[in-house]
């Protein structure tokens, strides 16, 4: 399926969770997942273990620096 992380298209396995999409977007983020602010397209916070829908957009930024990735 495909999802979007910070508006970048990611192809990922069916049934992937938010964490999978983030580490597919940038594997180096796996180790700092707790320091990320992760939001859906409506600005709601979502958990790394949350499910994803086809074509869903998620947005991540470093929560302590508030700088975009």
């Amino acid at each position: 399926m495909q999802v979007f992380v910070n508006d970048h298209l990611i192809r990922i396995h069916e049934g992937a969770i938010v964490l999978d999409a983030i580490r597919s977007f940038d594997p180096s983020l796996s180790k700092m997942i707790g320091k990320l602010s992760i939001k859906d397209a409506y600005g709601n916070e979502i958990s790394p273990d949350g499910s994803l829908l086809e074509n869903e957009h998620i947005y991540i930024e470093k929560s302590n620096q508030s700088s975009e990735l």
Partner: protein
Amino acid sequence: MKQFLTGKMLLPLFILLFSFTACLSSSEDSSDKQVKVVILHTNDEHAKIEPFSKLAKAVEKERAENDHVILVSAGDMFSGNPFVDYHQRPGSPIVELMNDVGYELQVLGNHDFDYGQETLKERMQEANFSIILANFTNEIGILDSIPPYHVHEFPEIGISLAFVGIVQTGRNGIPATHPDNIEGLTFTSGFDVMGEYLYLKEEHSALVALSHMGFGSDLRLAEMYPQIDVILGGHSHTRVEDGQIENGVLVTQTQANVQYLGKTTLIFEDGKLVDKYSRLVKIADLIDEDETIKAKIEEFKNNDVLNRKLISVDHDIKGKADLGCLITDGIRAGLDLDIAFQNGGGIRLQELPAGDIKVKDILTLDPFGNSVVVMNLTPAEIKNFLESRAGRIDLYVSGMSYDIITNKKGDYIDTEIKLDGGIAWDENKRYKVGVNSYVASTYQFEREDDGEDTFTKTSDLIIQFLDDQESIQYQNCERIRIIKR
């Protein structure tokens, strides 16, 4: 000069005063006619028992402050805590705590099927709360009939709430759990089925969708059916701070893992819903704890279940090669795969020493909670996969072996793959290959099939594998060789 109020001047003042009093009186009457119902809710508890001592106090406080309260869950009470998942009676600690706190209702989420139908049926019999699900039929399944909806009456105020339960289905038409867990059950679209229950709106004071479909789907549901008053959601683990009004429908969700308690308030006047709003209570911020429940949680965590012996070995299983063989054999056997791979970075012990191997050893060996993703790959794609590691021994394997070919200087030249038993590869066949979800999402290589999550944890499969074996031998397991030419 003094001015006196004449009769002519007093008249408008009297009218003004009368109007104000009448207005005030009308407002009081209106307020008197209004009644407040509070729906307390959580979703995706995922067996997190630790917050329940604070949750109990928060619920108790709301019940003390409000006359008309109901506590519900939007699904996925199971899966996510070894003390619950590996309990002698899987899931029973969370059901017992939900009983204690006074849940009245839950919709089945996809992970509520994770322990299989036999176990789910047992836990449902132990639950003091109703469990609903509308978008499935139970043709030859083990589960007893599950009602599609639940009505909660507040007879003292003449209010009744109808809750309809729906769960997500994936591209394969089933909820996100292993297909074996839902054998004999047929699922239909929650979007379609919800439409069949809109009539409940006419019969009751409010219609609530208890939806385990995810926040994005809940917004779509609201667009389709403005007749729904409230959607209490789950599945996407979304924190909707104050609820979101979509097409007149209040949509909310409390993230996951009992981090928040949702408090959705409905105001009725003359039996009609006139206002609705929602907010979240952060459980970690609360101080008061229910001491009885706290003691019970400690008891659950002192359970010896993690010390359960799986098997005894008469030799050390040392190093990533031997441990990798064990892990991949477990993954391959549990899911009946052709081939299974495990990345070296995911093997977190140096050895399993001779003696008893216990549940906790496997959870330390493989601690990440990754699930298995199955891809259907051709031999050429399997070779691509291995070549993407550029000659490093990083992927341990079961069902096949491979040689990394280098030149005399050690520079990588090629990878040669061999199926077990000397069987020739069928270049046109797609082999069922299992990898963990970390590898599936981070190892980039050319392939047609993106793969599909089995929603089965690698650690569960290794534990099951060891449970099933009478003896094991993992010494000098040589499935990967480096050959200099």
